[in-house]
């Protein structure tokens, strides 16, 4: 159990009478790249919202790094080591690229500085600001965004906005990174780059990656394990080769 970073047990949520997600059991080991696929409306993003605390589960429970999560706020779950990106990019559009990443670094214990210290401009404020900016630049360098660091986030091209969102999520120093359709709207070349980026992030930041994706090339290329959802329930589970050749999965995607 020690190497299990995220485990859901009979996780489910219903909105009114609609059972959006039911009895989902996912077990993700440390350092894995785990995929979650399924047709539109299968409940994939709902599972992400459950794990990040946007929704509270109506049935079942889940564990992060062996700790049961019950009634935690989104902030607290983030502090426990869960960071995410969004299906429709959500950046801080009117802030510069480097500041977006600095917001991600906000809660890091290395950059503690109280409001009073900031208002009175005590030495700690300047030290924290400087080291935060350096750290943010370092992260941007990894994602090849350093030259754009003073642009407003909304002025970045689409692919770079995606990268920035991942950089901001990584700035919170997560144990597990949830990526919601990272390759949406990307061309094949960008997707190939993204696959390299995801592998690089997993290897160098010591994080587990849990991703939702429709691009089967990406899923088959980097995921080590897959869960297929259909109508809120688990349809299949296993390695990509096993799952993608499963007749039930093909039926769910393409119909009879």
């Amino acid at each position, binding site marked *: 159990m020690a190497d299990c970073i995220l485990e859901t047990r009979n996780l489910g949520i219903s909105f009114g009478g609609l059972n959006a997600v039911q009895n989902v059991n996912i077990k993700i080991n440390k350092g894995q790249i785990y995929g979650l696929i399924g*047709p*539109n409306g299968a409940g994939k993003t709902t599972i992400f919202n459950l794990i*990040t605390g*946007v929704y509270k589960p109506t049935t079942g429970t889940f564990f992060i790094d062996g700790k049961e999560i019950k009634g935690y706020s*989104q*902030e607290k779950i*983030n*502090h426990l080591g869960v*960071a*995410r990106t*969004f299906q429709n990019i*959500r*950046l*801080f*559009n*009117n*802030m510069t690229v480097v*500041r977006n990443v*600095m*917001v*991600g670094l*906000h*809660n890091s214990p290395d*950059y503690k*500085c109280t*409001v009073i210290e*900031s*208002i*009175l*401009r005590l030495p700690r*404020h*300047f*030290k*924290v*600001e*400087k080291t*935060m900016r350096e750290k943010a630049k370092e992260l941007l360098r990894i994602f090849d965004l350093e030259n754009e660091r*003073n*642009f*407003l986030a909304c*002025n970045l091209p689409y692919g770079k906005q995606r990268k920035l969102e991942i950089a*901001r*999520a990584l700035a*919170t120093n997560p144990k597990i990174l949830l990526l919601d359709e990272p390759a949406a709207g*990307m*061309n*094949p*070349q960008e*997707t190939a780059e993204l696959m390299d980026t995801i592998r690089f992030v997993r290897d160098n930041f010591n994080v587990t990656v849990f991703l939702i994706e*429709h*691009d*089967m*090339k*990406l899923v088959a290329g980097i995921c080590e394990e897959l869960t297929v959802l259909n109508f809120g329930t688990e349809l299949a589970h296993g390695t990509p080769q096993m799952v993608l050749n499963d007749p039930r999965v093909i039926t*769910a*995607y*393409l*119909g009879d």
Partner: protein
Amino acid sequence: MIGKFKIKHYINYIVISIVAVIFSVISLSGGQIDNSTLFLLEKMTISIILAVSLSLVVGFLGELSLGHAGFMCVGAYIGGKVASLLEESLGNGILTFIISLTAGAGIAALCGIIIGIPALRLRGDYLAIVTLAFGEIVRSIFQNTSAESFGGAIGLSTPRFDKKYLFIIAFVLVLATLAVLQNLIRSKHGRAITSIRDNEIAAHATGINVTKYKLLAFTLSAMFAGVAGVLYSFSNYTVQSAKFGYNYSIEILVMVVLGGMGNINGSIIAAALITFLNTKLATILTGDLAVLQNLFYALILVFIVIYNNAPKLKGFRDKYNLASFFKNIFKHKTDPSIVTDDAAKWDVVPTKITMDEILSVDITTNDNGQSDEGGKSDG
């Protein structure tokens, strides 16, 4: 280590200090400043404090608050009352002022917390309605107090403070307000507040304690509205609840919006300008013409808004604005061959594309020949 000192970042302190020093030198050396000018200066400083503090909530936190006059009302009544209680024992000096300032600002901040905790669960229009209601409730509470406690409908009379010095104190308070709010905004905490404005859902997911920062911004804003209230009670001799109606809240909001959301210097200029206009209109248009005051005020506001936003006036604005005016003074020639970095101005959309640009478009083909849709197979 202190980072690069940029004069641009401190220009507002410098301008306000210069104005304050000029007037205090004239005033203290026995020069001719009539009381109405001093009164106008006090009114302007009060407006500036109000506008800058509201700007924190509206411009940086991104929440609409229509109860700013309510917090000012609390500060004015509490500060005025404390001052009149202390007048006998402590006299009419700076000590009385400081104690009443602390009391007024403190109680206003407390109101900010009490209102903030339930209200900040609401969003957008709903928060605006709750704050609007708060302002009206506070006003009618003070209006219906007994004559001995807070003066009731007649108003609370406050001690007279030497006009020669009050405006200097007011300017110091403006600088203090600016220092606190600007230092907050230009720190990691300010970044957290701005991130909530830009995208609250993402701020949650990035681990920002949204409730804490909303409450902090709301409380600080209420506190400085209280400071403005105390200043008002010292400047006016009587505090009447009718002053703090929702019209006044809207007027403060107009200052913030006119100055540009999230632009402190803009708020300062707009606050000074609107107060100046209002006061001048009130002195020029008297008697039968008094009814025209609001008309002219509204017309000027409409003109400013249209002038600043109309796309057709863009060329005119670029030609005749203050920034280029100052640039032309300091820099006699502008060399058209110097091209500034285009990347810095991404929002400028080219309207005319030349043949060269079309020919220089770089089209690359994918070697692997696979289309984007190949991998996607949504049921």
